[in-house]
């Protein structure tokens, strides 16, 4: 009985490890394929990143500085003008 069970356990060891390796290898290559396909046909995030660089630059100007610039523009223009875009030089 134990001999049969040990044979069964050995089979499980071999089949189980092969299956686990096989599934994870497939997952790895599937991941690589997805990355390649998405990079080729839908690299939207890269475009968004380019666009967001300008946004990041604006975000890089802290809130206090922005408030000071807004207040200055408001004072100089008598409250009629406002800063639409602030860019670091």
């Amino acid at each position: 009985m134990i001999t049969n069970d040990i044979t069964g356990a050995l089979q499980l060891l071999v089949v189980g490890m092969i299956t686990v390796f096989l599934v994870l290898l497939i997952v790895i290559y599937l991941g690589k394929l997805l990355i390649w396909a998405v990079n080729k046909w839908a690299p939207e995030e890269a475009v968004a990143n380019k666009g967001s660089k300008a946004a990041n630059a604006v975000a890089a100007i802290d809130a206090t500085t922005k408030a000071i610039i807004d207040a200055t523009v408001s004072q100089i223009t008598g409250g009629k003008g406002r800063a639409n875009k602030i860019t670091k030089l």
Partner: protein
Amino acid sequence: MEQIINNVYEMTAFSNIIEANGTYLIMYLLAFVLLYLGIKKHFEPLLLIPIAFGVLIANFPGGEMGVYQADEAGRIVDAAGNVLAENIWEMSLPQIAHDLGLMNFLYYMLIKTGFLPPIIFMGVGALTDFGPMLRNLRLSIFGAAAQLGIFSVVLIAIGSGAFNIKEAAALGIIGGADGPTAIYTTIKLAPHLLAPIAIAAYSYMALVPVIIPLVVKLLCSEKELKINMKEQDKLFPSSNKIKNEKLIKIIFPIAVTTIVALLVPSAVSLIGMLMFGNLLKEIGADTSRLFDTISNSIMNTATVFLGLCVGATMTVQAFLNWTTIGIIIGGFFAFGLSIASGICMVKIVNLFSKKKINPLIGATGLSAVPMASRVCNEISTKYDSKNHVLNYCMSSNVSGVIGSAVAAGVLISFLQGMAL
């Protein structure tokens, strides 16, 4: 007067506890120790506390909160030999609640049906980020190597003669370091061992900060532990730069579920739910309400009932025996071997590859996400304060979740229908 006092004494649990020669006291002590570990030491408190409280309330004679295990024919017999149910599979749920108590109703409805572990997996999926795995895909293979502990312990357990092959498989799955997977496999293969296996699995997961450093110290040199993954990345840059991570993260769970379902259908209940939870997270705003529900309300509810029911299976009759001690020892071996096999796989890869890998990444091939990765990061920064391996470890750690679920699927599909 004496008669009244006798009746009151018989009404309380004291009479049975005293007659049982202190065995109940051992269970109370165990419950208090688990409560202490959960509350004071913060060892997996979300699960250890419900389990410990389940143990406590299940072991008061007359309380009818302990779970009775049915044999294959559905027959339930209590410790005194009284038949409580001839065939529980033919009883309706209200009848189970009426005849066997509330906890048996919950156990046979939520646990025995295999309902709760996949539900918890769904919540785990919602809390898992596959980003580190996708950014370091080649490291994911160590999640497979670490499953060797599971299958090795099946072999050792059978060799010991103390377990049949189904029980040995349920014991071996502790090496996957994944609570829901261990519980699901045990329910399918050896439900009478659910209590000690669940306790061993969660206790060893809580002891990850102790076990991993122990195995790493035995197997790794200082030079190996100082391998800096970021420097290796600079020397040998990866060709897989991700340009649209959001889209890949949405497609990935769908694709993995499909592949696993085709190769190992018996693992779909776990992997499928894991990936479903993850998909809801990755879609973002459109499914944010569902994501919020599964990662909070549903997962918390499932955790409460899973913990209480598992604890309630730990009655004196089911727990205090030599099999439990065998499971505690075997579980430790399974855990240690899983960590060791992951480390050894890294060492083998390093022999043939120019781009060296820190062996700690192999040590995280078992599940226990993210605690295993955090522990390995602490070890690496101890040797070199600038060497942060957390992101790399998360790759093999997350793939270990998939690996252990696949291993469970193999065990279930091979053994579930087997006659002993």
